[in-house]
């Protein structure tokens, strides 16, 4: 394991994108940074600009308006960058499955590395997902 991947797994800067979610997943993501869960212990930080991101946390069902913007944001991120789908909507479109303006699920648009299920996922589930992501990066990629 090179020092580069080691450093990458120890400090994941997270950029949070909501493309049409009901905000519950977003609240649960913010919960991870509160005193009870505090994932800054593992070097995870919420950052403001995509240019600094190592992971994109995507919540919500992809509607027609957000798909092109989503692609644009993914192209703007500097490249060892993983995509994490948070919540049932981002995974499988959930209750918007046959809706008129939600056409394709997230993993047909972007290469998703990690799925965190739940409606909304608990902060514990998000932390467990992050540890799985770290293991996956360490194995090779």
């Amino acid at each position: 394991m090179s020092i580069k991947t080691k450093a990458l797994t120890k400090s994941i800067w997270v950029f949070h994108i909501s493309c049409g979610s009901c905000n519950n997943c977003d609240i649960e993501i913010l919960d991870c940074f509160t005193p009870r869960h505090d994932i800054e212990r593992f070097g995870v930080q919420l950052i403001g600009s995509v240019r600094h991101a190592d992971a994109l946390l995507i919540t919500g069902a992809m509607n027609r308006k957000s798909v092109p913007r989503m692609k644009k944001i993914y192209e703007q991120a500097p490249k060892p960058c993983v995509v994490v789908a948070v919540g049932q909507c981002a995974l499988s479109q959930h209750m918007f499955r046959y809706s008129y303006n939600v056409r394709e699920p997230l993993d047909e648009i972007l290469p998703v590395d990690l799925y965190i299920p739940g409606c909304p996922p608990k902060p514990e589930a998000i932390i467990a997902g992050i540890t799985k992501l770290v293991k996956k990066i360490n194995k090779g990629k």
Partner: protein
Amino acid sequence: MKILLNFLVFPGLLTAVCVGLLAGWFDRKISARLQWRVGPPWYQNFIDIAKLFGKETIIPRSSRWTFILSPYLGFLSLVLAATVLGKVMLWPSESFYADIIVILYLLTMPAVSMMIGASSSRNPLASVGASREMKLILGYELPFILSLIAVIIRCQDSIQLGSIINYQASFGSNIFSFSGALAFIAAFFAMQAKLGFAPFDISEAEQEIMGGTLIEYSGPLLAVFKLTKAVLLYTMPLLLICLFMGKDLGWMLLIPKYIGIVLLAVLIKNTNPRIRIDQALRFFWGPVTIIAVISVILAAVGL
């Protein structure tokens, strides 16, 4: 050879970066403890820098060279300031004439480089950040220079850091006089704004303008900006110690003084919300400048 060694290793680059990153960790840890969290491990900031050096650099379609070179401009001139300051603190006799003015100019370079880089990235949010940074410089430089003048008048009109330290070594620290204490308060607020700590982190407001001046920077160039912040966190408290508490500069007293000043800055950072740019200007040109002017007058009278 010796000068190069000084610049690259001992009071200069390597030491400044290591101490600055450790102080940055101290800041994060104290903030975490104040919010009842656990906080990151001590090597977190080193890992962040290592990671950023391994990432891709994206250069926007803009004036490339100013975008690439401006982080290095700010970083190298700040390291030069740290070297001059460190040498003076170790060997006060080696200080050269008017080095306090040299340090004053070099300390504004990081903010200038940040403005150049931000405005050459062509991002509207970055230009908002750059304009805020510019207004903030106009705000805090005035009280900072006034408090320096108070110190200079107190130390028998010498503009040489070495003789300021020697004066304090024989006549007691500046901070224990009326004019020195007032000047310290003014200079401390200026330091808070220079470091970009919370009431004055207007130019990098993450929540409103998404990182502001740093928004377009990624990878190694962002790492250089982070290192600039770290070296600034090393230089500014040391400069304040030099100017106001220069009586004993042995290791046993220097380290508690340094930690104390950083701790005070972190506490102010964590207990104050971000203010608007007009409030910041009003604050610096109002109360802080008045305090600094009073301290200059007191110093001229001899208190």
